[in-house]
């Protein structure tokens, strides 16, 4: 099936999300849609999937113009979509999820469960997905859940499959499996639209690449194009992909975690007997797939959650049981994982957000009264220093872009002398320019002699920032490795494989992305 978009335009208020976008997807091709967060990729795909009504332009299937009133129409036309956040019912089985909305029925309105199971098994066998139709979705690993989504789309006879940021939640090995699946589907004649902002993956798998910037198609590229070229096309200027940093001059380990265990609300250990040391002037990256206890680890350090066992010692003082206020007082700077929920108050002004955990002490207040002038002066200084783009310091923080919100949080947390700096997912959802800035500030903080802990699920970021890397899996630290460890080894460790075994396995078999790394090293810079 040939799919064509002509002059698609979508406007939200004053924002032109899609500006006359032309896109042709040939039968059986993997077409990568590359662009930064907010470039308009998802909007375009939602238009294609019938979720948004375009303000202009048209969609052609096999050269016939079509209009989609909703996803139902799009599915009927052979378009399937796998969303970044899976649309699955966790307590249903795979077969039930696949059948949902299109349940095969027997007489009397009863669901034909056997037929649903057969359908799943059939598709699963055809592509070697290895998915058990009777398994509960909540018991499946993320990578398999994604395959369920793909089966769901294929069961509706999708001939064009849209994958929206499919690798965001996967380990490198899972990504590798996904790439294999994509190639298989391509062999079978299914076209794939692969939405991403990760250059490496695009080069590994795509047949053609269309780059979108600020709602416009800014160019097409061949997968053989060098990464730097793709990056500059995507961002609109030349960018440095790596982080420039001198080797760490690590000092004493002033921050130590020993035997830390945190339970969740139902009594499972989400952080399980963790030991960590962070030295002054080094960045320790905590790597791992989302949801393996990293969040709880940082929250326990800050005192947001109470550990059931263990000690957290900063500069010789145990922080356990002290609460958040005490931890901040001890000199912890904390950038939470979810900035819009935990980092800022959207309905508060930028200037108030810049003193959210500092307002109770001079110079921002005296005797319980806020010093508005001091707060304003602080804001004026910080927004220049951290390049926060805002109309005014009195503007509501919620109106800022993600990158600028993150800069507000960073500006606040770095605006006092720190004894420990913790940042969770510091660059998630940010544009390349902001990522460069954030990384630079983090390295500067390290060079000031502050022990730094970064939690990241992005291997690129882990490798770029880490002086040492602690890999977490199911609440435990699988191992602490040097910052220049092989990508494949890290990927295997993120799946729970111990270090020695991971090294051995990685030597035998390189993933597609791991090979790309090696190639990149061999290529002259």
């Amino acid at each position, binding site marked *: 099936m040939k799919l064509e978009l002509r002059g698609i335009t979508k406007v939200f208020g004053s924002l032109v999300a899609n500006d006359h976008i032309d896109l042709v997807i040939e039968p059986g091709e993997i077409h990568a849609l590359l662009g930064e967060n907010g470039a308009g990729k998802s909007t375009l795909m939602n238009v294609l999937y019938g979720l948004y009504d375009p303000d202009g332009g048209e969609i052609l299937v096999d050269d016939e113009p079509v209009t989609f009133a909703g996803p139902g129409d799009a599915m009927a036309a052979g378009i399937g979509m796998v969303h970044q*956040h899976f649309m699955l019912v966790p307590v249903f089985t795979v077969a039930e999820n696949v059948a949902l909305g299109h349940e095969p029925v027997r007489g009397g309105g009863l669901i034909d469960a056997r037929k649903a199971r057969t359908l799943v098994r059939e598709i699963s066998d055809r592509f070697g997905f290895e998915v058990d139709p009777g398994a509960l979705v909540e018991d499946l690993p993320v990578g398999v859940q994604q395959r369920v989504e793909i089966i769901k789309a294929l069961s509706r006879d999708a001939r064009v499959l849209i994958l929206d940021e499919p690798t965001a939640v996967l380990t490198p090995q899972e990504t590798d499996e996904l790439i294999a699946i994509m190639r298989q589907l391509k062999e079978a004649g299914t076209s794939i639209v692969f939405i991403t902002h990760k250059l490496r993956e695009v080069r590994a798998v795509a047949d053609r690449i269309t780059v979108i910037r600020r709602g416009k198609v800014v160019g097409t590229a061949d997968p053989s194009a060098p990464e730097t070229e793709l990056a500059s096309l995507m961002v609109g200027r030349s960018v440095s992909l790596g982080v420039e940093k001198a080797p760490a001059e690590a000092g004493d380990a002033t921050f130590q975690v020993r035997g830390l265990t945190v339970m969740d609300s139902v009594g499972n250990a989400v952080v399980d007997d963790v030991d960590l040391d962070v030295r002054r002037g080094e960045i320790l990256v905590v790597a791992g797939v989302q949801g393996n206890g990293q969040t709880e680890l940082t929250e326990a350090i800050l005192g947001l959650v109470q550990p059931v066992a263990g000690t957290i010692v900063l500069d010789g003082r145990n922080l356990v049981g002290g609460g958040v206020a005490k931890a901040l007082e001890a000199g912890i700077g904390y950038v939470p994982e979810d900035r819009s929920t935990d980092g*800022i108050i959207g309905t508060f002004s930028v200037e108030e957000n810049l003193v959210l955990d500092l307002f109770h002490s001079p110079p921002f207040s005296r005797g319980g*009264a806020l010093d508005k002038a001091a707060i304003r002066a602080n804001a004026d200084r910080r927004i220049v220093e951290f390049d926060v783009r805002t109309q005014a310091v009195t503007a509501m923080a919620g109106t800022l872009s993600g990158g600028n919100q993150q800069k507000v949080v960073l500006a606040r947390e770095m605006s006092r002398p720190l004894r420990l700096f913790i940042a969770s997912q510091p660059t998630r959802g940010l544009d390349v320019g902001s990522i460069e800035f954030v990384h630079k500030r983090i390295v500067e903080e390290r060079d000031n002699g502050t022990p730094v802990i970064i939690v990241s699920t992005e291997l690129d970021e882990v490798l770029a920032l880490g002086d040492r890397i602690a890999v977490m899996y199911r609440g435990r630290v699988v191992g602490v490795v040097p910052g220049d460890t092989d990508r494949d080894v890290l990927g295997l460790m993120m799946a729970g494989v111990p270090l020695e075994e991971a090294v051995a396995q990685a030597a035998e078999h390189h993933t597609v992305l791991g090979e790309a790394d090696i190639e990149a090293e061999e290529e002259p810079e």
Partner: protein
Amino acid sequence: MSDEPTTEARRPGQPVLESKVDEVGRGVLREILESSWVVTLFAVVAALVLGAILIAAADQHVQTTAGYFFARPSDFFNALGSAVGNAYSALFQGAVVNFHGTTFARVIRPITETMTVSTPLIFAGLGIGIGFRAGLFNIGAQGQIILGAILGGWVGFTFHLPVGLHLLLAVVGAAVGGAVWASIAGVLKATTGANEVIVTIMLNNVAVYLIGYLLTTPMLQAPGVNNPISPPTPPSAQYPLLLGSQFRLHLGFVLALLAAVVVWWLMERSTLGLRFRAVGANPHAARTAGMSVAWVTVWVMAIAGALSGLAGSAQVLGTETSGLTAGVAASFGFDAITVALLGRSKPLGTVLAGLLFGGLRAGGFAMQARTGTPIDIVLVVQSFIVLFIAAPPLVRAIFRLPTPGGPTRAQRRAQKRAARAAAQPVTEEVQA
């Protein structure tokens, strides 16, 4: 699945920070609070229009003329006009200025009555507004007013102290009474996570029966009386009258205005207020910034209760000094919720909304007396006002107001035109 934010992770048995219901409630509340002044204004207008329809429908003359509407429609419209006109004119004259007054005092009495009636509404509304802004639904002002009245009244008629000191002590007593009563809900929420809506509603009931009971015991009941009424408040514990004995307006009104200023300073200029607002706007970020949500809950409830207690003092030490009865709080505690909503939880707004509701109540009596329009209409109008401000999109749709943040209609039209123009050449190509 792991979509749920993990910030809520806590030890088993630790209280839930906030339930899903609370979050939904917060969202609704925020929508109300962030609706524009224009919406509030139009909500009042819309409610008055609906009230006018009801006044007309209830009017005998209008009903008769409607019977022969097609024979002489002019009769019907005249009757309609005069029914609504007379009723609202009576309402206005009963609430603001009586044009038919024979003496100056009579001319201006209505506005002083309005101010008198609004005093407890403003006090309690300020307290409830603080709660709203801190994300707490304090429905218990009624009970807090009663407890304030009990303690304030008791201090008033039990002790014999010098003028000034006696009043001061009675006022402080009323504030403490309300604060303690509200703190029960605050402490329960902070320590066990008990929902403050349920606890405060139940405490209202407890307070009603508590005062009923106490009025039959020697603690409150006046000696030698069979009725459930306390001794009168002695003059030394009464709020001084502001305009002499011809008017009921007392110092409590000035105190209420003063309280509004203090509340403004507290919420906008103090570190305490910043904590309150932060917890109300985003408890997760507040916690991450080192604030204690539990601590804020206790404080907010205590301050809100103290203000409601002062509302009780306005009654027992000001307006109704002849003795404390079970009806001392009337429905002020519930009306104050409306006042706080209408005033969008801001002090100035609360004062204005309190005056409006005080005026509706004071004028309502005059309207009933003069035109026979039932005072219940006033309640209906009040309820409609709340209904409308609770549904800003409805008001915007009725009055065709632009959606905040969205494009204006002119902009939308321009966009549509541009998009059509853009799409045009493409379709032509296809056709060709």
